[in-house]
């Protein structure tokens, strides 16, 4: 069973085709990585998967359900969550508030307008536990915008996990994190619950090969090749595509 699948997915912006006939299959419970050089169309693809963009052609399926026409928030309620390459947080809220908010929305309690926010102890307890797990226990009540970048990056992932997704899309989780704090993020990613299917969009080959059990390579909007990490690592075509990239790392 595929947790996430695209069928002939295509996106055109005028003459540019950032997503061209992509047939991606992500198995249930997989640690699947999507790699590709800059401009390969990774971000467009994730925007198509999450519903931020509508495809020109093709279908997107989540656990067998066709979600092509659904809005982003509907996809979330069906079990999809994502993180962003550039932090998308609620600067004025504290981590505690933000995580509690996500849990409340997950439980469909977000329309309650007469309850005091945070008065539901079960939700707050879950939020506190999650915050601890992500190393945010000591900054629970700080303003998010005043947190150090590494903490913000952890919160970025914590917010996605708080929704208890079945499929999680991680868009370059370690992007911009200083070398010293990098291992914390990688530990977080490695410790994600096993029943969550993860699609990791990543640039950094060390992270990909340390994490993924399946890798798809995207080049010029097309799925170039897919396979086990070993096969990808030894594929001369992939090496050729990445030659320029790998010297940066």
């Amino acid at each position: 069973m595929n947790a996430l699948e695209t069928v002939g997915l295509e996106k055109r912006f005028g003459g540019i085709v950032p997503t061209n006939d992509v047939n991606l299959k992500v198995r249930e419970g997989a640690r699947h990585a999507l790699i590709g050089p800059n401009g390969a169309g990774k971000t467009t693809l994730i925007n198509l998967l999450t519903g931020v963009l509508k495809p020109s052609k093709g279908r997107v399926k989540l656990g067998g359900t066709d979600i092509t026409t659904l809005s982003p928030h509907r996809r979330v309620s069906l079990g999809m969550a994502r993180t962003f390459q550039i932090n998308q947080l609620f600067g004025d809220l504290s981590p505690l508030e933000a995580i509690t908010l996500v849990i409340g929305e997950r439980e469909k309690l977000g329309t309650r307008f007469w309850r005091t926010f945070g008065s539901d102890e079960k939700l707050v307890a879950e939020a506190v536990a999650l915050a601890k797990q992500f190393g945010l226990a000591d900054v629970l009540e700080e303003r998010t915008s005043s947190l150090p970048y590494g903490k913000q990056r952890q919160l970025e992932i914590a917010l996605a996990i708080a929704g208890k997704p079945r499929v999680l899309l991680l868009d370059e989780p370690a992007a911009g994190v200083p070398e010293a704090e990098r291992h914390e993020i990688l530990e977080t990613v490695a410790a994600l619950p096993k029943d969550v299917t993860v699609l990791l969009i990543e640039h950094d080959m060390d992270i990909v090969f340390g994490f993924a059990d399946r890798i798809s390579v995207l080049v010029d909007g097309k799925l170039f090749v897919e396979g086990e990490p070993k096969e990808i690592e030894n594929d001369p075509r992939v090496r050729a595509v990445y030659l320029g990239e790998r010297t940066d790392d």
Partner: protein
Amino acid sequence: MNTVNTVQQAVAALKQKRAWHWLEYLFWLGAAASVFLLPSQHALLTQIAIWSLFAISLDLLLGYAGIVSLGHAAYFGFGAYVAALFAINFYGEPVTGLLVAGIAAGLLGLVTSLLVLRGTDLTRLMVTLGIALVMYEIANQMSWLTGGADGLTGMPVNPVLGFFPIYFMAANAYAYVLAVCFVLFFVAKRIVHSPFGYSLRAIKGNPLRASSIGIPNNRRLIAVYTIAAAYAGIAGALLAQTTPVVSLTYIDFQRSADVLLMLIIGGTGYLYGGIIGSALFLVAQKFIGNVTPQYWEFWIGFALVVIALFARDRGVFSIYERISGALRSRKAKP
């Protein structure tokens, strides 16, 4: 046991934001006392209370949901006309009139929100302005119903709930208006500190992320727009019930601009901004305006520039925040 402790602390921390500050009790006690202690100022205080409610309504949009509006008088004026026409044609009991006006303005808000929520800030500014202009012209053209430029007179104002007369009784009218403001303030405060209210803040702070955590942004914004329109309609109805004539000034651009100005002066996003702003605005208008009208325009313009440059979010409240912050940090020093 440590975990339980932390959770309880967390719950306490979250709840604490909604708790009433002693200054708030003081404020409302003072407002209630003004009914008895400031009889000579009841006309002005009634105006302040009504504008405050109107500004609170705009704060729900701007301060909590991040929706800018230059046409909020559309709902205020609509509520006023509905209340007046309802009283003239059906029933003159004021609270019933408020409910009818609130529902009618809320429905107008619900319908027009579908137009307003498309697009970004500039679009919203233009669309809200456009809606208010359209409403103004409708009220102007339908003079057989609204009295047009002559205004609408002859609205009966029965005793509130059948026993509390407010017609041409300044003290009672002020008490009535104040009571309505307090109830609606209380409701607004509950709303903004509820899960729904927090979801609005999330949408305001980062709409992209809000929808990515499963918040249906549009539905929530439609809901708050409807609530805010109902509030504005009730504020309009209050003015209609306490003034002899409902006229086109209830719905004109000046009113939309003034309420925005008051809210910005008082500061957005903490509900008291609308109250403080309208009090400052109207008191200053009365006293400076008495000296010379040109000076009034000068000072309000000057205040706006200063606040827009230095205290945009919290208005005059940020002055208090800065002072209390400075005091606290001084205390904290050994």
